[in-house]
């Protein structure tokens, strides 16, 4: 289990344990955290699981693949450095302590 902190747009924090192997999106879904919509269920097809990764964590995550980068390119209020799609981030032990911020809205 890795501890992940999801911060809603209004500032409300959710600190939850997510099983390694799941994605950061699935961690939000399984803990009913609002704001990560994930319409496509994790297929990298809809860009509705967008978050801003805490600056301290940006470089500690595996790099974006082209598909994710391209999807993000047109997401709502993208930050070129901090924006990620949570369905593309697999939870590992190294991600214990990860903090992500949920945007005002998806798309």
């Amino acid at each position: 289990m890795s501890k992940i902190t999801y911060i809603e747009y209004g500032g409300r924090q959710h600190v939850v344990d997510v099983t390694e192997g799941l994605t950061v999106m699935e961690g939000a879904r399984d803990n009913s955290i609002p704001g990560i919509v994930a319409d496509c269920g994790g297929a990298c097809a809809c860009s509705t699981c967008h978050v801003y990764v805490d600056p301290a964590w940006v470089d500690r995550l595996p790099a974006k693949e082209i598909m994710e980068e391209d999807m993000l390119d047109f997401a709502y209020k993208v930050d070129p450095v901090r924006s990620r799609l949570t369905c593309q981030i697999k939870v590992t032990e190294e991600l214990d302590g990860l903090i992500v911020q949920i945007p005002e809205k998806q798309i």
Partner: protein
Amino acid sequence: MTGIVVIGGGQAGAALVAKLREAGYSGRLTLICGERVPPYQRPPLSKAYLKGDMERERLFLRPESFYASQDIDLRLGDRVTEIDPAARLLKVGGATLAYSQLALTTGSVPRRLPALIGGSLRGVYVMRGLADIDAMAAEFVAGRRLLIVGGGYIGLEAAAVAASLGLEVTLVEAAPRILQRVAAPETSNYFRTLHKSYGVRLLEGTSLDRLLGSGTVKGAVLNDGRELETDFVLVGVGVSPATGLAERAGIAIDNGIWTDELGRTSDRAIWAAGDCASFPYKDMQIRLESVGHAIDHAECVAVNMLGAGLPYIAKPWFWSDQYDVKLQIAGLNSGYDRVVERSGKCISTSIWYYKGDQLLAVDAVNDPRAYMAAKRIIEAGQTVDPRLVQDPNTDLRDLLVTAAAPQTKASGF
């Protein structure tokens, strides 16, 4: 005290109950699911789950505990056999259940081959629920022969999984080309080439005459008289809306359960959403079979059940994964009179559907930027000059800037 009952635990049913709670409904809420598993995602069934890359629990739309935590009475493995709209009563599993408002999210059922031509033989499968996939999983072994009937998205996705796993795949499509019902020839051509490169035998313009075998399917006779042997068969010839229950209750049916722009059926206390329901779109009454629509329609109906009075405006989008290719579709192409193709990097391309100068839809193949740009333009009711689209030097971002409302008269661009 009665409350809201939702019949059908698919994507729409799950979205509807969650939205009712989110929107503040605190009365009794019951979700009746025919299957014995909590609501789950269907798209991976013909993709990652079929391939064995995804465990069952990861398909669940919400953990089972969600329903209890939201005070939603989740009834698994229950089937409603009758609705009595006058009394506002349901018959479910031999008991009766009263409702103040009812939502039908019964989805759709796959069309099957008639028993007369072998549709009931063992080894003949359809692809709709977890049980279907679990039943056929043992057949997906390298070297075995699979016959797929139907060259739509389900058939092609299954072909991709089977070919990737080393099966010998033959696919027959009665229409002159695969994806004929849903896409332009350019898109069909792309996927034909792709599947052939993986060794799938595609027989277009070829229909199935009958399946052969006694007890278990052994082969097939095609309409041109050809016979072929097969170890199992997958039928992917479309779905029909699950309207039986509504029909028997005297609710109006029109290409699915008829609903108005709010999602209400011909009975004031009964609503419908998702695959099973038809709804007004532009000047048509249409039905959509997609996850995006199931969610949006159900959420809209949920707030309308609480009195919001919010007309549903569909924003159609779809996707399909085949091999390492992702197809994303924005908009609905029905009524298109021309297409332009925009070639992207490497194996990416996009097909842009126009009616006059109005952009209707885009099929983006491994080109998420084209998909996202087009989705924005279409949903804003705008259009872009096809010459700009076709020009590889046009940046897609610039398209968004130049997008504008279509001219009322057809301009020559």
